[in-house]
């Protein structure tokens, strides 16, 4: 370690510039540069929305005006703005506002966990496959094909039957559905980096397989992964509504946005606008927030954007 010290280079010094103005461009203090990510307004908005919904979910018992399953079928389908039930009531006469607040507990958490899990698994598989030989890549991608080829409903039903319907099934079904997508999307991205010179350089610098994948290539595809994953959050809440419609999801009367959407969908044409629209809108807002967050995070991963001092 002691070896490569400043060379005995007085001779070297001879060609150096006057002290203090070493070649290397404009002076700036190195300290101030570190991660000065300029968080843009969109990301802030997104974070505020997500935080707000998480807070609502967390403090649901304190905030929600009613219990989520407090039913009064005599008061069913009250419209938006009814006194006592600002957001109206559903077919069992339950307070929609309270159910939306409580529903965040399951929906947000389920979607977040499931998306995080599938992103983790999918991205890892994709990275490995992208930099492996034909055999390993083939094995991974064909396994993914098996998952793909399996129609969602059948897979979801299988989980439901094995585990009994409920939250776990929703999470597993989402993971099952989302993982192959993440894998294929990331795989295509990763392949673009195979054969790039920086990878070659990493090889020559002795980086091993995993190190190349996770430390060299991952930062280059992380933006795409994040964009894809955040896009999945909303989509998966929506997807969970489809599972609920099949009777596989969260069990009634527990509140869950997905279930609320699917219940709402049963009365759209019948004209019960309130119960039909509100859950969809809530999910939409949350999904948008995650989208924006994803776009913002993508910028964070892009050094071109990160330092944009604008």
């Amino acid at each position, binding site marked *: *370690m002691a*070896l*490569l*010290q*400043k*060379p*005995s*280079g*007085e*001779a*070297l*010094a*001879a*060609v*150096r*510039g*006057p*002290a203090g*103005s*070493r*070649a*290397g*461009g*404009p*002076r*700036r*203090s*190195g300290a*101030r*540069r*570190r991660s000065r990510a300029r968080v843009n307004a969109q990301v802030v908005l997104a974070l505020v929305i997500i935080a707000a919904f998480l807070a609502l979910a967390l403090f649901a018992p304190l905030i929600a005006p009613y219990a989520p399953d407090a039913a009064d079928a005599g008061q069913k389908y009250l419209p938006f703005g009814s006194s006592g039930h600002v957001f109206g009531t559903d077919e069992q006469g339950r307070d929609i506002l309270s159910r939306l607040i409580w529903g965040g507990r399951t929906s947000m958490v389920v979607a977040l966990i499931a998306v995080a899990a599938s992103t983790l698994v999918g991205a890892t598989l994709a990275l490995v496959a992208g930099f492996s030989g034909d055999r390993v890549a083939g094995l991974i991608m064909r396994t993914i094909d098996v998952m793909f080829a399996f129609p969602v409903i059948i897979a979801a039903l299988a989980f439901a039957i094995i585990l009994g319907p409920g939250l776990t099934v929703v999470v597993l079904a989402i993971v099952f559905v989302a993982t192959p997508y993440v894998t294929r999307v990331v795989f295509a991205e990763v392949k673009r980096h195979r*054969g*790039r*010179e*920086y990878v*070659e*350089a*990493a*090889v*020559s*610098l*002795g*980086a*091993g397989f995993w*190190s190349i994948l996770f*430390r*060299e290539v991952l*930062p*280059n595809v*992380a933006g795409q992964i994040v964009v894809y994953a955040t896009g999945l959050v909303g989509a998966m809440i929506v997807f969970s509504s489809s599972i609920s419609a099949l009777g596989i999801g969260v069990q009634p009367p527990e509140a869950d946005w997905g279930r609320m959407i699917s219940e709402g969908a049963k009365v759209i044409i019948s004209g019960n606008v309130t119960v039909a629209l509100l859950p969809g809108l809530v999910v939409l807002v949350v999904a948008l927030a995650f989208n924006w967050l994803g776009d913002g995070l993508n910028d964070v*991963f*892009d*050094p*071109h954007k*990160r*330092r*944009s*001092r*604008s």
Partner: protein
Amino acid sequence: MTLQVSDLVVEFGTGDDAVRVVDGISFSVAAGETFALVGESGSGKSITAASVLGLLPDSARVASGSIRLGGSELVGLSARELRRFRGSQVGMVFQNPLASLDPSFEVGNQLREIIGLHEPDLPRVSREALAVEWLGRVGIKDAPRVLGSYPHELSGGMRQRVMIAIASLSQPALLIADEPTTALDAVIQKQILDLLRNVIRTTGSSLFIITHDFGVVSYVADRVAVMRDGRLVEQGDREQVLAAPQDAYTRELIEAVPEIGTRFALERAGLPRRLGVRAPDWAVGSGSPVDSADRADQVGGAAPAVPVAGAASGVPRGEAASARPGEPLVVVERARKEFVVGGIGTGESRRSFLAVDDVSLEIRRGEVFGLIGESGSGKSTFARLAGGLLPLTSGTVTFDGQPLSALKGRGLRALRPRFQYVFQDATSSLNPRVSVGEQIVRPLVRFGKAPSVRAGRARAAEVLDLVQLPTGTFDRFPHELSGGQGQRIGIARALALEPDLLILDEPTSALDVSTQAAILNLLLDLREQLDLSYLFIGHNLAVIEFVCDRIGVLEAGRLVDVFDAHELFAPGRSPVTRALLGAILPIERSAVGAVDGELEGLTETTEPQPVAG
């Protein structure tokens, strides 16, 4: 049409955070004139050039000043308005030609498209013909193959030439060339410069060239400006600036230019082989205005360089090193590399192309082995083979007794830190999403050269300093570096590992001579201290002669000549070698005209070229 730049200020960012990289410079380039901008790496040359066409990076902006082209103000124009000037009136060769072509299209396609931009009515066949013609002009002989190749299938020099062809073929009124010949061998370089001069002479257009090569300046420039830290420290006619530089920095630069024979002059004087160190008589004789007091000053108040350096080892160290009969470190036997080109989906028949053809050589411990050859002759490919980055088609590579070509995975990786590689295309070899400091630290930690990340950082700071980059560079991302800065990161990254063998593929092509000198001296120092071996690929023969002990010459993939550096000019050199030597551009320093007799004699025997007038 004249380019008139006045008080140009370019900043990255705004407000308090703004960093000024071009700081109020003014110059003009008249019609029919060649204007050369030289200067320190990272001083803002490329940014200046880019601002003319409004092609600054997203985060940069022209803060003030004006850029006028033939009477029109360009600052403040929208992209759409600027487009009128681009290509047709102003052509630009970017500094990093290696990444400047679209990786997804064959070169021919891109050339035809650009021809179409300028002459929309030209039928396809004629475009093709024009493309072939221009490739010929920039010295590409097998135009059909190149036209059908993707950029990554071309050698560095080939890509650079394609870029020159692209920028020149519309024969713009102003051609901005940012270090256009760095990846070219001497012969091609001269051919291209002749071409550019011709264009300018015949069309009355102007050339704004950024270069580090004073040979190039001598050869083509009418006027020269010297830039440092965002400011122009000096500008004037070529003769004046070269012969009687006013500014200390200019003098320093000129002094750092390596020239053929310098090494032997030093050897004879018993001085260490270091650039910027001159035999006293020679320095005096040169009538250089740099007096010894001045130089002592730059040394930082230390005792005069020469005696100290000599005292350090007692004997001329360069001599000692090259004389020592080291045992072979790398043995390459009958290496061949074949690339398959064409095939399904390319519209071409599948055939193979021999990039390296039956090359055998050894690099001894402590030796600097130079590899030269025309652009595209297979140098980089050979280097990759030697560095275990490409599988051989046949043959073997042995490193320190271990058969590299047979090793795989873990075994190979264990050896990696012992031989390192500095890529020709520095920018592409840096991970765009990882800060450069991190990129230096990682291998250190990985190989246990730094016990902790903290130690790794300290070490990275050290090597950054060695390659003359400020510690602030640590947190930058590759795209925030100038060409030369990126190149030095590549060197620093490899050096930090203290490898036994360092493969350097044109490591100083983007460096100003002063920085280059520092880097070369550093390499020579390290070799002595650590007994390193280098495989050094270069086009600048003066540099090659200066640093190398033995030199090999590649031609079309074959090793045609291997000789001792002393014998560069000996009779019996292969025609390629002779051609390369013959194309060296001397520096026209009136006072330096009286180079050592020996040197002068040599240059004469190798058909000295007329200096541009």
